[in-house]
């Protein structure tokens, strides 16, 4: 059943192989290996117009890192991480890139426990929880159907409890799939792109400067008013800045 759902994916990737994207990726890969990070970056960026994936965004982040632009590297790692929250490589590189920004407000490096949770919550890919939900649904109704025909009380008990567990798991999987879908499609986090940003107390020029943050720092966008954004830092500080000073993840 699971493989059946994977089938369209497999067909899709076969379709990709037939296009010039594959040779584009291979050329970028070779450029990166040869140390020409600029060429690799332009190749990967062009490939981005054909589709995206955590691996591609990860590679783009690596190119930016090697070219010395930590902020753009962080942005692409964060985007990659949204698609694959459990990917250890992305997280390791993101932690390293974060340690090279000017502001030290960002989160602590990922712990082992959290890494496990991310890997569980993230699934193998962005559709993993949706597929799990579908699989569990089929199993659940199969168990319910079996209950109609089973006469022996022992088996009825076993299958009944199994169906209950399956129903619980299905609800959890559905919730996780929903949360994953939401987090992939929400753009309420952003990376500061301006070299120096004065965060003000009001969405106007008159506002008092509350604090100053620098390129590469991650913020959460709370609301938008008059072309300005209210943002919150990882340490809880809040204030207003301008839209063009950041790039949404």
């Amino acid at each position: 059943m699971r493989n059946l759902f994977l089938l369209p994916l497999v067909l899709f990737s076969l379709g990709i192989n037939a296009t010039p994207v594959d040779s584009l990726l291979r050329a970028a890969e070779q450029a990166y290996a040869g140390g020409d990070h600029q060429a690799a970056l332009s190749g990967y960026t062009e490939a981005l117009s054909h589709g995206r994936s955590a691996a591609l965004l990860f590679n783009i982040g690596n190119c930016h890192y090697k070219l010395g632009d930590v902020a753009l590297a962080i942005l692409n790692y964060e985007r990659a991480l949204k698609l694959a929250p459990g990917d250890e490589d992305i997280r390791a590189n993101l932690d390293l890139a974060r340690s090279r920004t000017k502001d030290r407000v960002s989160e602590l490096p990922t712990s082992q426990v959290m890494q496990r949770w991310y890997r569980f919550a993230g699934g193998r890919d962005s559709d993993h929880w949706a597929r799990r939900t579908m699989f569990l649904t089929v199993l659940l109704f199969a168990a319910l159907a079996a209950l109609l025909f089973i006469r022996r009380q022992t088996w009825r008990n076993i299958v009944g409890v199994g169906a209950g567990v399956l129903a619980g798991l299905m609800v959890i999987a559905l919730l996780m799939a929903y949360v994953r879908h939401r987090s992939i499609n929400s753009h309420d986090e952003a990376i500061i792109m301006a070299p120096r940003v004065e965060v003000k107390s009001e969405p106007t020029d008159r506002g008092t400067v509350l604090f100053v943050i620098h390129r590469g720092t991650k913020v959460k966008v709370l609301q938008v008013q008059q072309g300005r954004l209210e943002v919150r830092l990882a340490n809880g500080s809040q204030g207003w800045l301008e839209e063009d000073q950041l790039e949404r993840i």
Partner: protein
Amino acid sequence: MRILLSLLLVLAWPMANAQEIVFKASVDRTAIATGEQIQLSIQLVNSRERFQAPDLGGLVIVGGPFESSNISYVNGRMSSSITRTWRLTATQPGNYTIGQAQVRVGGGVITTDPITITVSKGAASPSDPYATQGQRGDANLFATITVDKSKVRMGEQLVATYTLYSRYNNLELSKYELPKMTGFWAEEIDLGNSGWEPKPRQVNGVAYNVAVLKKQVLFPQKSGKLRIEPLELTCLVNRSFFDRGANIPVRSNALEITVSDLPSPAPTDFLGAVGDLQLKASIDRASVAVNEPVQIDLQFSGRTNLKLLEAPKLTLPPDLEVFDPKTVDKVTVNGGGMSGSRTFQYLLIPRIDGQFELPRLTFSYFNPEQGRYVQLETEVFTIDVGGAAGATGGAATERPVQRDVQVMAEDIRYIRTGDLALRPADDALFGSVSFWSALGAPALAYLLLLGWHRRTAAQREDPILQRRLKADRVARKALQQAEAALKKGSGADFHDALNMALRGYLQDALTLTPAQLDQERIAASLSKHADGAEVAAEVQRILSTCDMARFTPGGASSDQGLYDAAVAVIGRMERMIRS
């Protein structure tokens, strides 16, 4: 004769007093350029009074006064004159006025006329501007601070010289304090046993005795405008046996040094050295036994602040133990600045045998003359480490000292290669039609199954319906027995089985008890169907035939036709009841 002469003198004295007294000042020229000299002569004729030099109005005495006197007899009349001469010069262009000189004669005062001197700018004025400035303050005694460069890069060395200029013959330094240096690393240059320079130095035409008090090599440690405060000292002049002398305070000029930052970004292997450097690396031997030391020398030579040069960190393979380097300096500080060499001697001890390659060490310094960073690098050394000296073959039982794996550097993980599984950005399984239908389809299938199951269950619950539904199956079973009897040719058994089959069917299908199986009831039950009467008659015929055969003594033979008729009538009834 001698007496006569004396007499004449005595006689002549009153006559001489009666001579006219002349007092006049003159110069050899009234227009000079700076640095050139004029001669001022003041002549007093026919008087022996002392007179002082007039106010020179800013002109500086270079030489003099030289005094000459002269007595002459002209036609028996004696006249005498005293001439005092000064050599003067001017350090600055402009108009100078030599004031009136005065002399008291008898009851009155005679003055000379003032003289105006025009000084133009000299053609070449090679004099030090600081000395000129000092000379303007006090033409007899001043001090200067000079530097060889006033615009430097951070860390670039410059030499500051503290010089004393004096025109006094007798001078002692009574107090002297070097200015405090803020923002500089200062290194004193040893001047040896220095005193007054043997040759006087000319400043704007005026000769001075010059003593270099001190020289320092300065290394600016921060950028911006750095100020060197004035040198202050007190000199005791003209002290002699007869005179206590005079204390004269001297304050030199201050200096401002413009220090510019080094260009950014600096190379990563730049440790702050600015100047001109060479690097020579050497290793004392290329092959050693385990635990035997190897020495690596890194010799930096050239002109820079060698005393501030830090030992570069060697990046070595982890199994080489390295000790803090020993520093050997051969540094000289002289008028040219600081130069020489500094050698770092690293002692390495290989703890494991094998071949070790010592990575190339790079070192960058900033060269201010070229205005850029210059990178020096060493060659790559290879050390061959043999087995432990004096090893006795017991090495396998010895446990080596285990250490943690050393992390030498951090870098990002490598890119993903191969197929990156690109997908369109809006392609998500969750929320898609196939997702919801994959959730809905099993639910729908289950509901259908449940409906069907409910219906069959309801049928199972109804005994009459069950009986009727089973009637056909039961009858067929009984008919099979009849068929078996038919084949055996047992007539009694055949009719018995046929009778049982038909009666059983009628009971089940028409829901009748055995007692109710009479002709009227059967006919009544079947009458509501079409052909009911005909079927009832047929049933009646078969039943009565069976009854007759059963009660016929000796038994009737089995009858294929009757069997077929029974099968046919059961089939007809089944169709009738179902419809």
